[in-house]
């Protein structure tokens, strides 16, 4: 073993750091600029992941630089945070504090890069780049988008690759990943966009010196690739670290089909080692490439897209910090986009809206009242359905601890008394002169008891709120 190996102390996540340790390193001004009463309160919320060092203005002053550096070290995530892209748009990856989601919160949601191959015509490249740029799915009032563009060298011609990179750059601000094993091809392309800080893919056992040179010359982060060979991956990472390349991303290889277990096992082993051992220098973000589904044997596009579609959420659940995909089919991207959003929410806080009465349209004294839960998705779904059907009504949002109707009924958060509490607490009887509420079809079981407890007549609505217009025609307007 070489002497260049750097010895590391065992890392710990910020959630394992005591607020006292943080407090000792704070400026101690108790100035309240962070929004807290004093520095101790800030320290407590910092280790809880609610604040970053940026939230403390005095810490960022010149004379507190030493404190800031020490605090930065104390609270640094065991998996390093690395960014690529430039001022126009940049992406942070990694920065993980924990192995399991319930221990803290996963930071830096996995960006999804879509590939563009350099053999396409200029027109085709523009079209594909625009599709990536414009992809948008609305989910509980949030916009789900794609994040980066991975240009692939499929011809070995430096001119051709550089041209594809130039076109992509002209038509999109999204950060780029330049994919080639050929240093000449890489150098030509990056020289065109010297200040863009693209992610370079990839250094291998063959080309690492040349790639390291390019990464240093253009101060770009570099992917280290060693598909299936973890020893070589570690060798490469250690060598590049010793060469002074500061920002590395690891590609252990993504294999699907009969080899999917090897993929999951490798990603898990790499990440587990960071948190359980910490002595090996592998605390870098991990790259997953569901795009592999399109390589190799000839498959129908549906089969490849299908594999990609399930592999992406699986990789996200097993420690991948960045994904490269090929499919632009909405159905193949949806699971990844939704799962990413969900997986990176704070497990301690349900995605909830406030309980209360929400008027939709211009409801009057005779308008229907729909009971729903305060799980954000449930609420936004119901709201968007009644809005688009132009129904004037009230939504009575019951506090179910942020659970959906089905789970809230099962877990007894949506029950006759919580409904009664909402009716009385939010003074529903002041708004309408009838005494009827409509409960979700999935809560049919509690309709009888709810009538008894609330004294209001209970109508059982449809199981899915898309059925509300029909339900109103049949059950409300005729009653």
């Amino acid at each position, binding site marked *: 073993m070489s002497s260049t190996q750097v010895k590391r102390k065992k890392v710990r996540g910020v959630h394992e750091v005591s607020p006292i340790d943080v407090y000792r390193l704070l400026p101690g001004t108790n100035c309240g600029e962070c929004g807290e009463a004093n520095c101790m309160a800030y320290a407590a919320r910092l280790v809880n992941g609610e604040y970053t060092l940026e939230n403390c203005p005095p810490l960022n002053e010149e004379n507190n630089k030493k404190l800031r550096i020490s605090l930065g070290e104390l609270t640094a995530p065991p998996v390093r945070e690395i*960014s690529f892209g430039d001022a126009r748009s940049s992406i942070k990856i990694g920065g993980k504090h924990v192995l399991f989601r319930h221990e803290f919160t996963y930071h830096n949601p996995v960006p999804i890069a879509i590939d563009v191959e350099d053999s396409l015509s200029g027109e085709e490249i523009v079209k594909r780049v625009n599709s990536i740029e414009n992809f948008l799915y609305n989910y509980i009032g949030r916009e789900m988008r794609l994040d980066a563009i991975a240009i692939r060298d499929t011809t070995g011609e430096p001119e051709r690759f550089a041209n594809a990179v130039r076109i992509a750059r002209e038509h999109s601000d999204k950060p780029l990943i330049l994919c080639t094993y050929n240093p000449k091809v890489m150098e030509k392309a990056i020289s065109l966009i010297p200040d863009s800080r693209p992610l370079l893919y990839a250094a291998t056992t063959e080309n*690492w010196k040349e790639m*390291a040179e390019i990464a240093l010359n253009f101060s770009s982060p570099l992917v280290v690739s060693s598909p299936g060979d973890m020893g070589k991956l570690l*060798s490469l990472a250690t060598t590049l670290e010793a060469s002074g390349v500061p920002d590395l991303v690891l590609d252990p290889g993504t294999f699907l089909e009969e080899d999917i277990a090897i993929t999951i*096992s490798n990603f898990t082993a790499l990440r587990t080692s960071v948190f359980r051992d910490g002595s090996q220098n592998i605390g870098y973000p991990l790259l997953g490439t569901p795009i592999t589904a399109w*390589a190799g044997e000839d498959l129908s596009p549906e089969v490849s897209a299908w594999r990609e579609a399930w592999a992406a959420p*699986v990789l996200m659940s097993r420690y991948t910090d960045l994904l490269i995909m*090929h499919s632009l089919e909405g159905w193949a991207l949806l699971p990844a986009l939704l799962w990413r959003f969900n997986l990176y929410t704070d497990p301690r806080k349900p995605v909830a809206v406030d309980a209360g009465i929400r008027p939709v349209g211009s409801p009057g004294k005779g308008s229907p009242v729909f009971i729903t839960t305060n799980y954000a998705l449930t609420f936004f779904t119901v709201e968007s359905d009644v809005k688009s059907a132009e129904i004037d009504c009230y939504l009575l949002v019951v506090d179910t601890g942020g659970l959906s109707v089905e789970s809230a009924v099962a877990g007894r958060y949506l029950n006759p008394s919580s409904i009664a509490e909402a009716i009385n607490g939010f003074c529903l009887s002041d708004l309408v002169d009838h005494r009827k509420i409509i409960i979700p079809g999935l809560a049919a*079981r509690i309709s009888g008891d709810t009538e008894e407890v609330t004294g209001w007549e209970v109508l059982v609505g449809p199981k899915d709120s898309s059925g509300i217009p029909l339900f109103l025609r049949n059950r409300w307007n005729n009653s």
Partner: protein
Amino acid sequence: MSEETRKEGIIPGLPVTLESRLLSLLKGTDKVILEGVELELGELELFLPLNLNGPQVLHQSVEKALPQKERHFPDSLVDMQFLPVQEKYPGRVREVLLGATAKNGGTRSHSVTIGGSTSTALSSLANPYSNPPLISLDVFDMHVPLPRALRANIEDVMDDPGEWAKRNVEKFGADLVTIHLMSTDPLISDTSPRSASETVECILSAVKVPVIVGGCGDPKKDALVFSEIAEMASGERLLFNSVTLEMAEARTLEPLIEKVKEHEHTVLGFTGLDLNRAKELNRRLYDSLSPDQIVMDLTTVALGYGLEYSFTIHERARLLALIGDTELQHPTISASTNAWSAREAWMKMDPLYGDTAIRGPLWETVNVCTLLLAGVDLFLMMHPAAISTVREIVNSYKQGISKVPAHIYDWTGMKT
């Protein structure tokens, strides 16, 4: 760094004002002596103004300013070995045997075992499955509205639970069959326990795999129905889906689990995403049942509708079990067909999002895949495409002794 910039002495990225001031101060000087300055290694960059262009750009400038000859690259690759951490846990998930053969007092052709994990799921090829996860396919005792993509495979047998069960086993390779006695729901048809019991009898004679019996969710009615069936199928080691704390409140739990004990079956304890309640329910069950008669359903929510809660609670439950929480050392099941309640699974969307014929099974697949990683031992499923994908993953892990992939494809240079 290009020759040109070096000549001009401009450090790219530094703000012009500061840079020009520095340069004018240093004009004609070839040496600068710093006095009374303590410099620790690594603090060098503090000399340069942070926060002006952001640390990244600054960093870039420093790198660019380094003449290439000062870089020291190792001559060759540093030789390293990756030694994965072998996690050892003190706890172990119990094994639960489902279905009894003639030798053991039942009529099944074979029994199956779930549980037995000694490590987190799929974490290492060095820890193969004690018992690989299994798949049970659903049968309903009445006509239920199913999405088109599900109906297509079973439309002709939907009115005949026995034939439906056979289809599940013979065509789709179900390890178990679940008969959902939905019609017993007092709010639906209120079918009698006797009649429900006959339906289960019909399933038991149609297929020889172990059988799961699903109720309607009413704590009183389910207890009546399950008791009747427990007696009728004495010794079959059925799995009753499910028993709940609501049954305990309705005082129907105890008589039911006495029957389950007497006739040697197993139960699935259902709780809504709450480990404390799961433990409480198990404690009540221990009063009469042996722990190896208990399986847990911690609730499966569809992707996009809270799957992350299911994922995280299963991860937590499994870790706690492995660390030594005996009240959670039970195998778990996931009703992954709940995936179909997500709109993305069944609703018509913009053509960009494809047909429900592919979105639906994909939703079921992703639900199962994520919970497979969280350690679930038995999945209730419906769609053949989802089933074959899940089998592919489980088989890969079962056979994954080799640490070298069979194929390494170059996705970088491929032409699509």
